[in-house]
C-alpha cells in the first residue's frame, strides 16, 4: 500500500454523554457515555443485541437519540442529519449502488458535494491505486467478489478524507483468510490516514487485534472501555472476564477453594491458560472431558460443583476421570465482588497469600 500520497488529515474526537435509545418499552442503549479520542481506533464490542450497532448508527445520525448528547470535535451534533456530520461509513452489507460502476460508487459523495472534475479524477486515481482497484473501475458491483466489494466500500469511505470513519461489522461477510488480510489492511489504512475510527464487531479477536480502545457493551450498558491489553489482564467485571479470551475466564465462588471457605462473598477468576498442574496446589479437580487441540490440551474439570476449563501442555497426557492438582501464579488471580460484580484488586494479594499458605 502506498499511502504517502495522502495528507495525514487529523481525526476528530467523539463524545457520547449519557446517550440512550428506547424503542417503546425496550431500552436498546442505556445511558451510555464513551470518550473516543481523535485519531484513535475504537472498537464497539459485545454480544448480538447489545446495542453496539444502534450506538454506531446514532453517531452516524441514522438513528435518533432518545436522550443524552453526542459531540463530534466538541460540537453538539445530536440533532444534525448524517449528511452534516462530516463522517463516512462502511456498512455490513457494503451498501454499494448496484447500478453504478466502481468508479461512480467511489466518487458518489464527491459528485454530491460538487467537487470539480479534475480534483475528483485525481482523488479517484489515488484511492484506486491505494486499494488495488485500478483494473476494476468500470465494473459493476455485481461483477466483483466479496473482498473486492469490501474494498470499493472502503474506497467510498476514505475518498472524502473525512475526519471520522464508522464501520459496522465490515468483515463479517468475508471468509476467514480474507478477513485476516483485511483486518491488517484496515488497521494500516487508519493509521496512515489518521482518521478517527469507530468499528463495530461481535468478534473479540477483531476488536483486540485492531483497536486502541475497546468499548465492551452488554444489554445496552457499558461494561468496560479500555485498551485491549487492560481488558484482558484487568477485566472490570465478571462479564468482561468471560467475554474476552477464548476459552473464557473461569469463575469460582470463593468457597470452591478449601482454604478460602471463610470468605464466601467473592468471585475468583483464573484464566484457563494461567492454570497449570501443580502438586499440592490449591485446586483439586476431577477431569470430565479432554479436548486435544494440537498445541495443547483443553480439559473440562470440576471442583466443588463448579466446572471450569484448563489449558494443559500435551507433554503430560491426562484422561477423563483422573483427579489432578492444579495451581496458578498469585497475580493470575482476579477477584470480583459477588454482589456488585466490581473488580477488587485490593484483595488479590490477600487471597493469593491465603491460597498459598
Amino acid at each position, binding site marked *: 500500500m502506498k499511502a504517502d500520497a495522502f495528507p495525514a488529515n487529523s481525526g476528530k474526537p467523539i463524545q457520547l454523554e449519557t446517550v440512550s435509545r428506547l424503542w417503546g418499552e425496550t431500552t436498546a442503549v442505556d445511558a451510555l457515555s464513551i470518550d473516543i479520542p481523535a485519531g484513535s481506533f475504537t472498537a464497539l464490542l459485545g454480544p448480538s443485541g447489545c446495542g453496539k450497532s444502534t450506538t454506531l448508527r446514532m453517531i*452516524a445520525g*441514522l438513528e435518533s437519540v432518545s436522550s443524552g448528547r453526542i459531540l463530534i470535535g466538541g460540537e453538539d451534533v445530536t440533532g444534525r442529519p448524517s449528511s452534516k456530520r462530516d463522517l*463516512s461509513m462502511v*456498512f455490513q452489507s457494503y451498501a454499494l*449502488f448496484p447500478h453504478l460502476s466502481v468508479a461512480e460508487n467511489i466518487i*458518489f*459523495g464527491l459528485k*454530491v458535494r460538487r467537487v470539480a472534475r479534475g480534483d475528483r479524477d485525481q482523488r479517484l486515481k489515488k484511492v484506486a491505486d491505494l486499494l488495488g482497484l485500478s483494473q476494476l473501475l468500470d465494473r459493476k458491483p455485481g461483477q466483483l467478489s466479496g473482498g473486492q466489494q469490501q474494498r470499493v466500500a472502503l474506497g467510498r469511505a476514505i475518498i*472524502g478524507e473525512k475526519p471520522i470513519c464508522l464501520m459496522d461489522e465490515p468483515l463479517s461477510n468475508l471468509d476467514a483468510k480474507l478477513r485476516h488480510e483485511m483486518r491488517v489492511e484496515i488497521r494500516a489504512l487508519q493509521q496512515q490516514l489518521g482518521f478517527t475510527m469507530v468499528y463495530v464487531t461481535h468478534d473479540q479477536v477483531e476488536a483486540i487485534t485492531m483497536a486502541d480502545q475497546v468499548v465492551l457493551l452488554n444489554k445496552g450498558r457499558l461494561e468496560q472501555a479500555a485498551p485491549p491489553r487492560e481488558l484482558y489482564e484487568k477485566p472490570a467485571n465478571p462479564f468482561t472476564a468471560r467475554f474476552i479470551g477464548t476459552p473464557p475466564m473461569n469463575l469460582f465462588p470463593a468457597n470452591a477453594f478449601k482454604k478460602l471457605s471463610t470468605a464466601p462473598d467473592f468471585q475468583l477468576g483464573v484464566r484457563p491458560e494461567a492454570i497449570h498442574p501443580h502438586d499440592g496446589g490449591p485446586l483439586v479437580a476431577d477431569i470430565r472431558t479432554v479436548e486435544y487441540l494440537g498445541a495443547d490440551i483443553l480439559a473440562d474439570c470440576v471442583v466443588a460443583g463448579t466446572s471450569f476449563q484448563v489449558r494443559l501442555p500435551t507433554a503430560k497426557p491426562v484422561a477423563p476421570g483422573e483427579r489432578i492438582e492444579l495451581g496458578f501464579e498469585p497475580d493470575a488471580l482476579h477477584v470480583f465482588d459477588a454482589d456488585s460484580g466490581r473488580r477488587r484488586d485490593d484483595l488479590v494479594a490477600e487471597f493469593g497469600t491465603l491460597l498459598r499458605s
Partner: protein
Amino acid sequence: MRDFTFKRDWIYGWLLLLPALVFLFAFTHIPAVTTFLNSFFSTPRGRRPAKFIGVDNYERMLGDPVFWKVLWNNLWYALGTIPVSVGLAIVMALWVNEKLTGRSFVRMAYFTPTVLPLIAVANIWMFFYTPGFGLVDQITGALFGWPASNYLGNPDTALNAIIVVTIWKEAGFFMIFYLAALQAIPVTLKEAAQIEGAGRWTIFWRITFPLLMPTTLFVCVNAVINSFRLVDHIFILTDGGPDNASALLLFYIYEVAFRFWETAYGATLTVALLVLLSLLAIGQFFFFDRKVHYK
C-alpha cells in the same frame, strides 16, 4: 418396451398440454392468422362470397380520414395517460412506502379503482361529468364560479375527460408495482447516500429512480398496451363522439367490424393495430435496454 413407455409419456405430455393449447389456438393464434388473411379479401355479403382483392383494404385504410383521426386520438390519449399515470404511480408509491399512520388504508384506497369494473367506474364518472349538477361542475362552480359545462359533449374536451378517467383508473394499479420495487431496494443504500451527503432529491434521482427502471419498463409496456386496449369506458361515456373526437383505434375497429359489419376492413385495421403495438413494444425494449439495470 422402452419405446412403448416413451410413447406413453409422449401421449401424456400432449394430453396435459392440450387444454391450454386448444384455448390458445382457438382464441389467439387461429384468429390472428385468419384476421391477417381476411384483410386481403373483400367482406362476404349474402350470396357474394369473399374474394381476394389484394391490398385494396390497406389502400382504403390509408385514405380513410376517420382512421387517421382515431390514430391521432390514440396517440394523444397515450401521451396524455402514460407519463401522468406513471409519474403519479411513483409519487403515490413513494408516499405510501414511508411510515405514515393509516398506511394500509391509503394503499387500499389507491388500489380501489383497479378493483372496480371499468363499466361501473365509467358510470360513476358520467355522473361526475354531468353538466350543471355533476360533481366536477359543482366544484368548479363553487370555487371559481365557472358556468355549467358539458365536458363529454364538447369535441374539444371529450378526449381529455376520458384521459382523466383512465389516469384515475391506472395510477393505483401501477403504484402496486412501484411499491413492490421500492420495498426491494435495501434501506442501507439510502443510508449510505445520506452519509455521503445526498439530500432526498439526489437520493431519488441518483439511486431510487435508476433502481426502479426495470419496473418502469414493465409498467410502460403495460401502459402502452392498455392505451390501445382499454375502450370499455368510451362506450359508456361518449360512444366515441362527438364527431369521433373521443374514438380510439380499437373502438373504431369494433364499430367497423360489429356495427357496420365490414369485417374485412375491420381485419385490416386490426392488423394495423397489431403491427403498431409490436413496434412500440420492441422500440421500448431497445430504448430502455441501455438504461435498465437488472440485479
